[in-house]
């Protein structure tokens, strides 16, 4: 069933307004009907959250910017290492045999839970932020990229071999462009996770960033700033996802968008 663009827009608008109203009603219900003394902390009115974001805008943005920039740096580093490792694994069977089982096992291990350990090892806030974000990005990127490199159809490769193409030009012209969609699938998984990692490190004892805002407002009870920071960090995660999609559109314009 095809839904026209205009109709889809209408449906989305109704949903957005519906959620807003449901939230308002729920907040009203908590405060006025049940008389929950913690109502404002548990479920504040959405308009009061928006007002608080506007009021603390510069403050929130500078904190978010600090967290975001570290996450981006680690993300880029992790993506680069993952990319290179995938190429090495596709070039050498032995390298693949050694590292692939560990890559798979490491996906079963709750990596983010290890953040405090890395923090105690590195002992530097900014560095450990970058290390953790890079570490988290690295796995999905390399696994996805490798599966892309391995799924190039062999007749395409054979055609290039029959032209006596060099290994280098096979990679440049066929393998790497072919596996770009796979690479971006990995990047899409990793982007919100690297933001999460960066916020987590903030909360473990950084001096600035959105995570510190979350933690302070949580304990000091300044309720509106707390919800404003939660919304900001959620928006950061969603933003990171869309940045990756934007890059995907720039890098592989030949592919139809299916998200």
């Amino acid at each position, binding site marked *: *069933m095809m839904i026209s663009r205009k109709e889809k827009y209408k449906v989305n608008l109704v949903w957005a307004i519906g959620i807003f109203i449901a939230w308002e009603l729920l907040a009203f219900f908590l405060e006025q009907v049940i008389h929950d003394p913690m109502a404002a902390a548990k479920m504040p009115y959405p308009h009061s959250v928006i007002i608080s974001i506007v009021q603390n805008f510069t403050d929130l943005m500078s904190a978010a910017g600090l967290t975001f920039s570290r996450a981006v740096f680690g993300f880029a580093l992790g993506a680069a290492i993952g990319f290179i490792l995938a190429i090495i694994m596709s070039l050498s069977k032995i390298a693949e045999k050694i590292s692939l089982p560990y890559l798979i096992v490491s996906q079963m291990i*709750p990596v983010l839970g290890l953040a405090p350990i890395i923090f105690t090892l590195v002992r530097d806030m900014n560095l450990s932020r970058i290390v953790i974000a890079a570490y988290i990005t690295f796995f999905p990127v390399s696994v996805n990229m490798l599966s892309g490199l391995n799924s190039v159809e062999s007749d395409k490769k054979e055609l290039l071999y029959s032209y006596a193409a060099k290994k280098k030009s096979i990679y440049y012209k066929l393998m790497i462009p072919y596996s770009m969609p796979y690479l971006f699938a990995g990047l899409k998984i990793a982007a919100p996770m690297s933001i999460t990692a960066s916020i987590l490190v903030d909360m473990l004892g950084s001096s600035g960033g959105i995570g510190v805002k979350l933690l302070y407002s949580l304990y000091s009870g300044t309720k509106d700033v707390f919800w404003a920071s939660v919304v900001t960090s959620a928006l950061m995660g969603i933003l990171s996802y869309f940045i990756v999609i934007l890059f995907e559109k720039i890098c592989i314009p030949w592919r139809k968008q299916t998200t």
Partner: protein
Amino acid sequence: MNEKIKNVLWPLGFGILVIIAWQVGIIHDALGFKPFQLPVPSQIIKTLSDNFSKALADTMITVSGALVGLALGCLIGFIVAVIATQFPKWGYTGLSVIAAFNAIPIVALSPIMNRWFTSGFAQKVGVVTVVCMAAMAINAYRGLNDLKPFAKDLLESYAAPEKVIFFKLRLPNCLPSVLTALKINVAAAIMAAMISEYFAASTSGIGFGIKDNLRKGMMAMGWSYIVMAALVGIILYLIIMLIERRAIKWHASQR
């Protein structure tokens, strides 16, 4: 030597090499770590075996919270996917709303849950539920709708009602994607449970154990908890893989 043994020997040899290098201090020298920062493997194993009953009890607390949340989250995610399939016009956006939850950092979720629930267990379950919902909803929706070409047309030409199409075609078809979602969610659930313990008021569980022991400077004990977390993650993943092997024998990925 045949291919299969080689496939095991290469990574195994590499792993043993790394552990030996770690044990004799090459890694410490190379990266400039002090022994109190990074305990050697033998010390971790000894600490773990000394405190095994306590570590196991804490692990059970975390895992039980993670599993309850996993079940709840997967159930909600699946129901959303079914609704989105049966009512595509209005339901699809609901799916996008759930998918947006995926981008919300866990660390922002757990303080919210702290405010909503007072018991540590309920907080954990709440965080894990939200984390697991998105992956299941997206994957199940894909499985319910990526039908083989003409399969739905065939059933419709038999005048099969929507209910029959759903139970005979869509439901079996979504099984592989549901299992994929489960595999993703197992690791995510344990991770979410651990992180929620970092910030919750709870005084037990793997997350609390890691945080508390590192704060007290008992690195080896903290590392033992990490070993436990890794083991639990691997065991749960293997269980899902076994179920997968039995449940979808007919699927291409298993042949």
